């Protein structure tokens, strides 16, 4: 009887530990991947014409490809022209162009965010 009880307890404990290890491993994997991903905004062009446009140059400076999913200008989200979301390869660069009626002399906070939650941000003034 004691052997049976002990066996059941061992099985339960192993299941518990396995479950914990599985969850923690996923957690470690996610934060590890996030730490390996890094993007920067290299430059921003404020383009005249009708309509006015903003082109944001983002570069992947990490060691894992980055999936760009959001671009914010002045706190609002915009969808750039072309393929979106965009997968940025390691050391790759992309020009994200959005239509935006910018005003000369005003400052704009521009944020590009990835699916893993990393951001590149900067304030730019045309």
């Amino acid at each position: 009887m004691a052997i049976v009880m002990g066996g059941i307890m061992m099985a339960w404990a192993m299941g518990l530990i396995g479950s914990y290890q599985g969850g923690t491993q996923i957690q470690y994997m996610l934060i590890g991947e996030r730490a390996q991903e890094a993007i920067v905004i290299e430059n921003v062009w404020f383009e005249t014409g009708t309509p006015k446009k903003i082109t944001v140059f983002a570069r992947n400076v990490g060691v894992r490809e980055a999936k760009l999913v959001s671009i914010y200008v002045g706190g609002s989200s915009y969808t750039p022209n072309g393929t979106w979301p965009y997968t940025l390869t390691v050391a790759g660069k992309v020009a994200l162009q959005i239509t935006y009626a910018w005003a000369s002399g005003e400052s704009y906070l521009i944020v590009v965010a990835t699916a893993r939650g990393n951001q590149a941000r900067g304030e730019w003034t045309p």
Partner: protein
Amino acid sequence: MNLLSKKRGVSGIISGVFLVAVAVMVFNVLAWQFFQADAYNRIFHERQLREWERYNERLIILDVAVGTERLNFTVKNYGAVSAHVVDLFFGFSNGTHLYYALDVWIASGTTKRIASVGPKLLLSDVYDFKIGTERGNVFAPAQQSIYNQLQPTGQQSVPFTLTFVTDAFQFILYGETWNPPVKSAWYINNPAYKGKHIVFRVNITNTYPSDVVLLSGCNMLLVTPDIEASTMKIGYRMYISNEDTTITYEQGKYKVQPIPSQGQVIPAGKSRYVYFSQTAENNTFATQLDANGENRNYSNYVAIFYKIKNDASGTIFGATAAIIAMQIKTT
């Protein structure tokens, strides 16, 4: 079976087996946790290393050539890591933006000339540009806009400067003092000043790293076109007077104090007023505005003769401290 059939001592063996099993499980969990944390720390350390390299990548753009058909510039890497320049962001002053890919490696502590890149340039072009590296850093030349025309680059040091601020050039008439407010002298427009005796003062700065001594030959020359004769004529020539001099009336003459025999000292890097009124070097007579009234534009040359204090050679230098545009209207 033989062991189980003998019931004595079995519980101790069973509990011992369980104890060992539990210990092995605990050890495994701890070891697994340790290896996971170590793997994460290694990833994070690599990230910090990349960040460190990124922050220590420093380039400076030098010698942007002008008057060229395409962009020519030098890049110096004064950072701690080699840099791979991959981007050229080009912008014309009319708002046109262009992008070009570059592929230039610059080792730490070295300079590299990047020539004939970017768009074709005209002499009338005004532009700016930036270069970007593979680590995501962007660098721009110091000057905001570059004019694609050859310009003189020579410089000439000047011993004295005039700051064109409100109180830099002033005058008083007989009966007045230098107590504020004092009138500015660039534009004198008052018929009541006709025939009045006058003292000017100019605030000049000594740009030498040594004190200088102004000599009695310093003068202010007001030159105006003589329209009728198609020549230039001297309206007034005034010599240097003593500091803070005013005009006094003595024995039927309007007089000012002459500069002391040892001259007037302007300390190194300091500004001082220099006064002009005497009609001749070392006399005491104050200059008088045209008694008939005038309406003239003058070019005013402030000529300074000076020595540098403690200069072993004792050289007397001459310089124009300022050329001032003046109008005197007393008609």
